[in-house]
C-alpha cells in the first residue's frame, strides 16, 4: 500500500492511542474508485454451491451458538453495500435476521470488515452487531452461488451505479434478465427496496420492477410504516452525500409474488421521494 504524506500522519496519530482498544476502522487511505466493471473477472472467494460456503467465518459468534446440524442462513442482502451504512443500521432494526453486505470493490470491503469488527468488539457485552457481515463479490454474476432458492427475505439496492452511457446500461444492477435471478433467491413475500438520487436510474429500476411478472409494488401505507424505509433514505454514506448537497431521492419497495396471477391489476404504482 503506497502512503502519501497526509495519510502517514493519520497513522501516526492513531498509533499513539493505547494499543489495547480496537481502533475504529478508518476510511481507506486511498481514494477509492466509485465504479467497478461487473463484466470483468475479478478474483472472488466463492463456492460452486451455496451449501458449501462456510458462513461461520463471517458470523463467528452466531455460529458458535448454533445447534448440531444447523447452518447460518443469510436472510437479508444489501447489494452494493458500499461503506456499510445500511448494513450496520439494519443490525439493530432487524436484530433477529442474518444480514450480509455485498460489495465488489476490495478496499471498501476491507473497510467495512474493519468497521464491523470494531463494532462487535465495542459491544461485546451487549452481544450486538453479530448478525452483520460483508463479502467481496459480484452480485450480478454470483448470487446463486451464495443463496438458495427463496432464501432472502429482504434485498436492498441503494444508490447503485447509474451507468449513464447507453452502451453500459447492461451493467446496471437492475435489468429484466437479472430480476429473474433476484426473484429466484427471494422468498415469496420477500421485499426488494431500491433508491436512487438519479431520476433516470430510478425510473429505469421502477419500470423494470413494475413490468416483471414476479414483483408487485407494496401498498403505500405499508411502505411508509416499514422500519427499513427510513434507513434506505438516510443511513448509507451515499445517502448522506446526497443530503450534503441537498439532493433529491426517489425510492420504492416491491414484493416478490409467487406467480403472475397474483399481480394486482390496475394497481396505482407510486413513487416515494424526500422532497
Amino acid at each position, binding site marked *: 500500500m*503506497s502512503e502519501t504524506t497526509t495519510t502517514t500522519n493519520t497513522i501516526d496519530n492513531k498509533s499513539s492511542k493505547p494499543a489495547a482498544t480496537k481502533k*475504529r476502522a478508518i*476510511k481507506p487511505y*486511498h*481514494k*477509492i474508485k*466509485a*465504479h467497478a466493471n*461487473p*463484466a*470483468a*473477472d*475479478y478474483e472472488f472467494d466463492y463456492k*460452486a*454451491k451455496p451449501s458449501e460456503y462456510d458462513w461461520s467465518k463471517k458470523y463467528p459468534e452466531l455460529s458458535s451458538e448454533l445447534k448440531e446440524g444447523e447452518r447460518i442462513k443469510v436472510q437479508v442482502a444489501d447489494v452494493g453495500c458500499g461503506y456499510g*451504512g445500511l448494513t*450496520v443500521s439494519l443490525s439493530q432494526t432487524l436484530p433477529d435476521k442474518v444480514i450480509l453486505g455485498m460489495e465488489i470493490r476490495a478496499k471498501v470491503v476491507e473497510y467495512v470488515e474493519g*468497521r464491523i469488527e*470494531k*463494532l462487535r468488539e465495542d459491544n461485546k457485552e451487549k452481544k*450486538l452487531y453479530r448478525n452483520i457481515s460483508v463479502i467481496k463479490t459480484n452480485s*450480478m*454474476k454470483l448470487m*446463486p452461488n451464495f443463496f438458495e*432458492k427463496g432464501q432472502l427475505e429482504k434485498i436492498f439496492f441503494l444508490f447503485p451505479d*447509474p451507468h*449513464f*452511457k*447507453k*452502451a453500459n*446500461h447492461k451493467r446496471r444492477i437492475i*435489468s*429484466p*434478465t*437479472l430480476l*429473474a435471478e433476484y*426473484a*429466484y433467491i427471494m422468498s415469496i413475500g420477500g421485499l426488494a427496496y431500491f433508491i436512487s438520487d*438519479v431520476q433516470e436510474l430510478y425510473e429505469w429500476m421502477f419500470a423494470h420492477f413494475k413490468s*416483471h*411478472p*414476479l414483483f408487485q409494488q407494496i401498498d403505500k401505507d405499508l411502505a*411508509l410504516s416499514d422500519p427499513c*424505509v*427510513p434507513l434506505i*433514505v438516510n443511513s448509507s*454514506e*451515499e445517502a*448522506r*452525500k446526497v443530503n*450534503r448537497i441537498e439532493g433529491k431521492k426517489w425510492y420504492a419497495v416491491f414484493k416478490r409474488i409467487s*406467480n*403472475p396471477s397474483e399481480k394486482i391489476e390496475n394497481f*396505482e404504482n*407510486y*413513487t*416515494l*421521494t*424526500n*422532497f
Partner: protein
Amino acid sequence: MGGRKGRGGKAKKNSPGYKDTSPNQITLKKIPLNLLATNNNGSLLAFAMNNLLYVLALESKQFLTIDATQQHQLILSSIEFQKDNTLITTSHDRHIKIWEINNELTSIKLVKSFNTNKKIIYTALSDKDEILVADKCGDVLQYSLVDDSKNHIVDLTVNKQSKQDLREQDKNLILGHYSSITDIRFSRDFKYLLTSDRDEKIRVSNYPNAYDIEVFCLASEKYVTKLLMPLNKPSLMISGSGDGHLYLWNWLEGKVLQKLDLNSLSKDATVIPQHYNSNTNLLAVSIENFNIIQFYQLSENQLTLSQSLTLPVGSQPISIDLVGKDQYLVSLVTMETTDPFVLSINTTNWQVETDSAIVQLINNLSIPTFTDSTIFKTYLHTIEKKQYRKYISGTDERKQRKDGDDKMVEDDLIEDDDIEEDLDPENRPSKQIKLDTNI
C-alpha cells in the same frame, strides 16, 4: 450529469494495440466440417463447412442440390431438423433460414430467411414452431418460425435507433445470463429450458415463462461446455466442463448424480459430451486437443455412467452423430489438405473405418479455397465456440489499468463526513426522518 468520462483504455480488436494472444495458434490448411445432424427417420445427414450447408441423402448416397446464392454469408452456428424434411439453420450472419427438402430427397429449397440483427451462437427448437436463439451477449431471444408478427425485428437500414435502445426494448428477449451462454436445451416435455454459461452455471428456467427460474445446477468449477438431454431418461442431463469433469445430473432437482474425472486422460481436460444414444444408452465424449472418443455406458437401473471404451481417432473430434443404427460419423479437426473430414465408427465391432461409402463421399468433397487467411486462424475457435467460454472483458485489460486505479474523479468521492462514527446504539441521537410522498 454527463460529465463522467469513460476510461477508454479498451483495445478494440482492429486497433493497432490489439494483439491476438491465444496460446495455440493453429494454421489450418483445410477447414473441418462441423454441426453433424441427422433427421429422425435417418434418411438425411446435414453438416456445415464454414458458411455452406450440405445435405446428404443416406439411401441414395447423393448430395442434395442447393442454390448457392441461398447459402448463409458467414459461418453456420446451428443446423436442426424440425421435421424429417424441414431444416433450420442459423449463422453468424444473423440470419435464420428455413429449408424444405423435396419428397424425392434430391433437392433442398430455401423457404424463408430472416435477419435477427443478433449474432447467433446457439439455438434450440421448441415444440410450437419457435426457435430460441442465444446471442453473443448472453441473451436468449425467441422467434416464431411461422408467424412474423411475433418477431419484433427492426429493419436497421430504415430505423436509425441505436443498438442499445433496440436491445432494451427487445420484445423477443425471454431470458439472459450476465455472461456468455455456452449451450441451450429444452427438457423433453418442453416445460423447462436449460441454459449453461461460462460462469460455471446451468440455469433451469420454466418455459414459456422463462422469467421464473426453477433451479440452478451448480457444481462445475469452470465454464460449462455442452449439455445433453437423454431422450429415454427425461430426468437426466449430462454436462461437460472446462474443469475436466463430466457431470450426470438430476437437473430438475439441481443435483449431481455422478461426477467423473477425466483429468487423468489429459491434463486440464476440457470435456465435451458429444452424443447420447437413447437406444443403447451409450454416451460419446471428446476432450479438447485430444485425439480420442471416450464412450460411457449409462446403466439402466442405477443411473450411473461407467467407462466402456476409449477409441483413438487420429485427430480431435469436433462433432459426432449416429448415421444408421450402428455407425457413428465423426468430424475431425483437419490440419493438412490430406486429412480426412470425417471417419466412421462401426458399433458392431468398434472399428474406426475410413472406407465406408458415406465417409468416402464426404472426404472427397472439394476443399473450397478461401482467400482470407484470417478465416483459417480463427476458424477452429469459432466452430468450437471457444471464445464464448473465455473472459468477456479480459483480465489483461485489468492488469494494464492497475496503475491508473488510484486516480479518481472528484465527484465520485465519499467525504469523510459521510461516514458517521458508529455510536453505541443507546447514545445514538434519534434521527428525525421526514417522509414526503409524491404520487
